[in-house]
Each structure stands twice: as C-alpha cells, then as structure tokens.
C-alpha cells in the first residue's frame, strides 16, 4: 500500500489514502496472466509434480506407509519385463494406428473435398463417431467382437476368415488389431476434419498452372497437394500420435491388457497396478515414464519433420 504526500502548496488535491499497487492494475500483465497460470499450476503442474514425488516412495503393502526411497520404484521399472512389453505394445499400437488413420483420413478428405450437393451432409455425418465416449465405443466393439453372437466375429466366421476357436479379443495375434479397429473407427474422422481444413486452405493457382502444364491428378497430388499439406499432416500426426500413445479406454474395456499382456500398453499397465494392486507409487513411476517417452518421441518427431507452430 502507498500513501500520497499531502502538501500545503498548490491546488487542493482530493485526499487519496490508498491506491492499488501497479502490479494489480490492468496496465500490468499480472492480473491477466495470473488466472491462467494458477489454473495450469493447480491442475497441470501440481499433479505431475505430485506423481513424480509419489514415484520416489516405496509403498509398503502391509503397513500401507509410503517411505521415501527414490531408487525403489525406478530400479524396478527398468527391470520389469511387463514394462518393456508394454513399451513395445504402445509403440506398435501408436505407429500402426497413426499410419492407418492418416492414410484413411487423407483419402476420405480428398473424396469429401467437393462443393457438390450432399457432400456437406456427408462431412457432418463424418463427425458423429467423435461424439461417442471412447468407453462406449469400446463396449460397442466388445459386443460386436463376441465370439458367440458378435456381428463382426460371426461375419468373419461366416466368410471363413476366422475360425470359431479363435476369439478376436482373446487371441494374442488379433487382439491388438481388433482394438485398433475401434480406435480407427472413432478417430479417423478427426483426421478427415484436419485434412479437409488443410485442403480447403490450399491456394488454387498452382493447381491451375499444373493443369495447364498437363499434369494428371496423381502428379498434382504427389507434387503439389502432399508437399503443401505436409505441415498440416505433421501437426495432425503429432496431436493424434500423442493421443494414441496414451490409449487407455479401449484397452481397459475390451481386453484389460489381455490376453496375457498382448494388449497391455503403458497406461493400461499403470492402471492395473493402480486399480488392482493399489501400489500408487509404482503406478506413478510407470505413468511418469510414459510422459517422458511421449515428450522424447514427440520432440524427435518435431525435429525430424521440422514442425513449426
């Protein structure tokens, strides 16, 4: 608080006992930045720091006490075979799903990039899967994959692509792919929307020039569309890739990481330790490891593909 000095000379000034500190006034950035910063600290930074802190403790399963022991969980994380399996499953899931969703998203976007009658409706319908909660999608596919009555399994059995003795979600070689299908059904429209926005923003002139020069559709796509769309594609892959790396809902609902550990991603494993064994510090260590891997992978991607925001 500052007080103004009252002098006996000069014109009479109104008596001001208190003025607001400058850093609290609208001229200073602080009042504008504070709410957002506080929210980020409370809901973003604090949980991460707390998880890091928790991961530095050993939880005694009998006494349930958390004792500070920084090495306990971290030495186990790297010695835990299930962690390594989960890392492999996570990278496999992320890389395959991103390629499929990108290819499908781009292809559908190219098909829907038209002003002809009915295309607007089709673009709107494309967004419908996005509004379904992922857990509901997982449940929906779980039923459709049921080996006895599921429409997908029965159809595949009927056309001879699958035997009755190999349930999709209970067979190690098919379970991860089955989950990817559900993920792809739900999130390909997201890719479509981003690609469509990118396609709509492309300048028309280069395409007109190419047409005059006799370029065919394939040449125009590979020499013009793809290069000009590359930054959009890179950003879409980055956003979706981070999302895929954290996949939890589908795995939890459809297989819970099984059969065995065939679909156990890092987040699914962390969830299992958390919910099943109630070992919160070790689950935190696995979760922090996931965060670190996401950050490293995303930064490598940004460097390699020169993504600029």
């Amino acid at each position, binding site marked *: 608080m500052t007080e103004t000095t009252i002098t006996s000379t000069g014109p009479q000034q109104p008596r001001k006992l208190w003025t607001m500190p400058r850093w609290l006034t609208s001229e200073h950035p602080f009042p504008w930045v504070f709410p957002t910063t506080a929210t980020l600290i409370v809901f973003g930074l604090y949980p991460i720091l707390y998880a890091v802190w928790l991961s530095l403790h050993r939880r*005694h*399963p*009998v006494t*349930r006490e958390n004792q500070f022991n920084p090495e306990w969980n971290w030495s186990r994380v790297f010695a835990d075979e299930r962690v390594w399996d989960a890392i492999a499953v996570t990278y496999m899931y992320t890389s395959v799903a991103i390629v499929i969703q990108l290819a499908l998203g781009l292809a559908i976007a190219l098909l829907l990039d038209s002003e002809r009658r009915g295309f607007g409706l089709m673009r709107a319908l494309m967004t419908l899967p996005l509004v379904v909660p992922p857990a509901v999608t997982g449940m929906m596919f779980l039923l459709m994959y*049921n*080996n*006895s009555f599921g429409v997908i399994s029965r159809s595949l059995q009927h056309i001879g692509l699958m035997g*009755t*003795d*190999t*349930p999709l*979600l*209970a*067979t*190690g070689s098919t379970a991860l792919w089955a989950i990817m299908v559900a993920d792809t059904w739900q999130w390909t429209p997201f890719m479509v929307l981003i690609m469509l926005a990118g396609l709509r923003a492309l300048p028309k002139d280069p395409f007109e020039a190419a047409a005059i020069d006799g370029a065919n559709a394939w040449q125009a796509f590979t020499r013009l569309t793809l290069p000009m769309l590359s930054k959009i594609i890179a950003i879409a892959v980055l956003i979706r890739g981070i999302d895929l790396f954290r996949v939890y809902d589908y795995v939890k609902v459809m*297989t*819970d*990481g*099984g*059969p*065995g*550990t*065939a679909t156990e991603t890092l987040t699914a494993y962390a969830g*299992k*330790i*958390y*919910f*099943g*064994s*109630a*070992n*919160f510090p070790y689950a935190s260590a696995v979760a922090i490891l996931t965060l670190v891997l996401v950050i490293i992978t995303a930064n490598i991607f940004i460097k390699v593909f020169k993504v600029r925001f």
Partner: protein
Amino acid sequence: MNFKNHDKQQYIIDTANAFTRKQITKREFLRKMGLAGIGFSAFGASMLGGHRRLGGLTGIDPAYATTPGQMRDFLREAGRPFAGTTIRYTSEATPPTVVANELKGEFTELTGIEVEIEIVPLEQVLAKATQDVQGELGTYDLYYLDQAWHATFARDTIDPVQYYNDKPELAMPDFDFADFSEPLVEGISKIGDKWVGVPFDIPIFTLMYRRDILEKHGIAVPTTYDEFTAAVQFITEAERENGIYGTGLQARSGHYSLECDWSQAVWGHGGSIFRADGTFSGNDAEGVAGLEWYQELLRNAPASSLESTWDGQFQMMAAGQVALVQSWDEFFPGLDADGSDVQGLWEMTIPLIGPHTLRDRADAGYGEIPDWGHQGGSSIALSRYSKNPDAAWLFLQWVTSKEMMVQLTLGGGFAPMRNSSYADQRILDKAVVGPGTTRHLPVVLETIEKYIASEPDMPLWAGLSSNEIPTELGKLLTGQDYDGNAQACADQIAQIVDAATADAGLR
C-alpha cells in the same frame, strides 16, 4: 401402518405369491399391481422373466418389503437424530446390493437417512476403497469387501459385534449375530477374532448340469473330478456339431474370475496356493495337475470362455451352449427365469469331490482353506473413517437383518447368509421352477456347511489374485507364452508371488 396400507401390502404380497406359484399370468399380475397403484417400469417388468440375468433378479418392488413393526419402531426412534444425513456405500453389482438399492427407500422413509449406493465394477470398488483408507477420507461410510480383500482392510473397519455391544441405544432388537452361518462368518467376515464386516453375499462353487443332455447320453451326474472330465469330453465329442460343449469357463486373462477357477482346480487336485511357510505352492505336483486339468477343460469349452468372466459363463449356460459347469450358485435363479431357453433344464448338486485328497488346512498358508467349494462371498463393513458411523450402522443392521435377508433373497434368488432364512416359509414356497427360484438353496446350504473353501487372508492377495496370477495364467491359456507348459507357467507365478511376499516381509 394403518389398515389401508396393511391391506394394500397384503394384497400385493398375495398377488406376488400367486404369480410366483404360476396361479396367475404375468399380464394378470401386472394388472393387479396396477390396481394396487404399483407402477412397473419397462425395465422392472422385463425383469419379471423377459430377460435373463445373473442371479435371476425378479424386479422386486419396494412395496414387497415389509419391515416388521418392532424394527420399524426401532428405526424410527434410533434414526431420528440422524434424519437428513446421507451415507454412502460403494459396491459391485452383486444381487443383494442391486436388490438393496431398490429397497433402500423404505429405510429412508423410516429414518430420514438418505442412502447413496454407488454400483461400479469390482476393480473400481477396490480402488475406491483403497484410496479412501489410504487417505482416511471417510468418503464412504460402508465398504463392500470381497473375501479376497478382508486381510487388506481388516484394520480399516469397525468390528460390528463390538459396536453392537458398545452402542446399546443403536442396537437393533433381535439382530442375532449367532444366526449367521458359522462357516460363512469364518470364511467371509473374520480375521482372527475380529469381524471385519457382516456377511452379505455368498456365491459358492456348486456343480450345475443340464439334466436333459445327461439323460440323452445316459451319463450319470459326475461326482468326482475324473468323472466330470470324462463326461465333459464325451459331451463335447457328441454335441459339438450342435454347438454344445461339455463345459464353459470364466477364463478371461488377467481377471479375478480366472484366478477363482484356477484356485478351485488346484484345491481339487490336492494342492494349495501357499504352503504353511508362506511360499507359493501352486507349482508343486498337485498344483500343476490342477492347472493341466483346467487346460483340458478349456479344450472342451466354447472359445468364448477365454473372453468370459462370470457374466460370460452365465451367458453360455443360459444360451444352452454348455452342459456341465462347476461355478457360482448365483447363476441358478437366472437360468430358471421365464423366457429362458433352458428354464427348468438345469439342476444343481454339491461340488465335485475327489478322487484326490484335500490338502490339510495346517499345510496351507495365510489362513487358506483348501476344500471343494470355492466361496466368493463378500461382507458389508463399517468404515473406521466414516463421518456418519452411527447412521451407517443403522443401515448396515437393517440391510443384514433377518427380515431383509429374506426380502433380498426373495428379490434376487441368491443364497442368504442367515440360517433362519433357509427355514423361512416364504423362501421355501419359492422352491419351484420360475424366476427367482430358491429350489437350489438346500444344495447351497450343504455346500456352505460342509465344503466351503477360502482363498488366503493376506494383505497382498487383492492385487495378486486380480493381476499377477491371472495375467500369467492368461499367457499360458491363450498361447502367448509358456508353449502350453503348465509347470513353466506355475514356476513363473511362484517366482513373482514369492518375490512379492518376501518384499512385503510376510515370510
């Protein structure tokens, strides 16, 4: 209760009894209920037989519940200071919890105490209860405790017997702790001398069989593991073309249901999960024999067994896909429901016995009880951290009282925990083929009294039984690892479990 209300409730009960005995049709029953001012939702009506459901819940209406006069007076008086209080209880969707959720309105009407029952999947119940006790939060006043978790939560609950004695002003008249089945109290509720909770649910392994299929092939009801295996193999061979298998399993990888099947297989072959010195013994000769037997069963079961927990196993039975199942008795009323394709075709008998000799309890570890009938019971426990323990205690007494135990059984058809319930005339009257049947209860009672088996009482068991053990078993059964070698799988489990118990300082 005034005479008008009394007459109305009597009319409703008479009508319900007539419907149960098939003296009136469903249409007539609904019409009469309409006259009595009872509205059934489409869901409730469908539960009267239109749909199949685990436990065969009959969609009981709160009007069925007739808390006796003495108890009503007690609840009104004792509950008065707590009117307006809300208590919270989290549970899996077990039959008694689902029915109690429907009937809780009467408790609220009498006491003014609101009851919130959160029904979530089993693993979430565990996570919520664990978080609550870890932080001593008191978010939940009552916990649903599966028998596998009792040792974990033993110090977080209030002993109900002690509370009953310490608070005479809140002690429900004629609550009668001695009326609870002794083996259940030992297996489900007690850790040492302490009652961790009050028994609330007792699914237990019995043998269920399709009478018509066995008769068709001239097969006697199996009584031993060897006879069962032979019958299962024969039926699969003979009926596979018709889409019928010898048995169905709850073998979903990584799920507690698989661990339940496995532990019974080990006990049934003379093994145990732990030795007396606390080391894992599922990898000894008897344990491996049990696991190999289970692998053989899987070859004679629908492939969907690998993706099924108890719900899926029940669906296989209800859909007529399987002929012989050793599993939870709570399936039975649902199989008898109206509209069921197999109504009246399933029968129940005691679990398989022999030819192997059971391992002695003294040779097993952590209070494990190797026997023929795996129990999967649960109790309802009063949280030590509850902010409203007295109000919650009143609800706990009400929901586990003699009268409510009968009402819950009539509504759900599951086995009651009190000896007096088995002799109750209303329950005996429902021992006929139909929705919510109680005709299987004599077998259940015999199994509880003579053959009840219990998993170990140890703090790590909640995690081991729902994560490490069923995950490794899943790798074996689905061919992800071990190349079909049961011994290798059991040895790996031994390594994991022994490391965990050593880390925890349990041996």
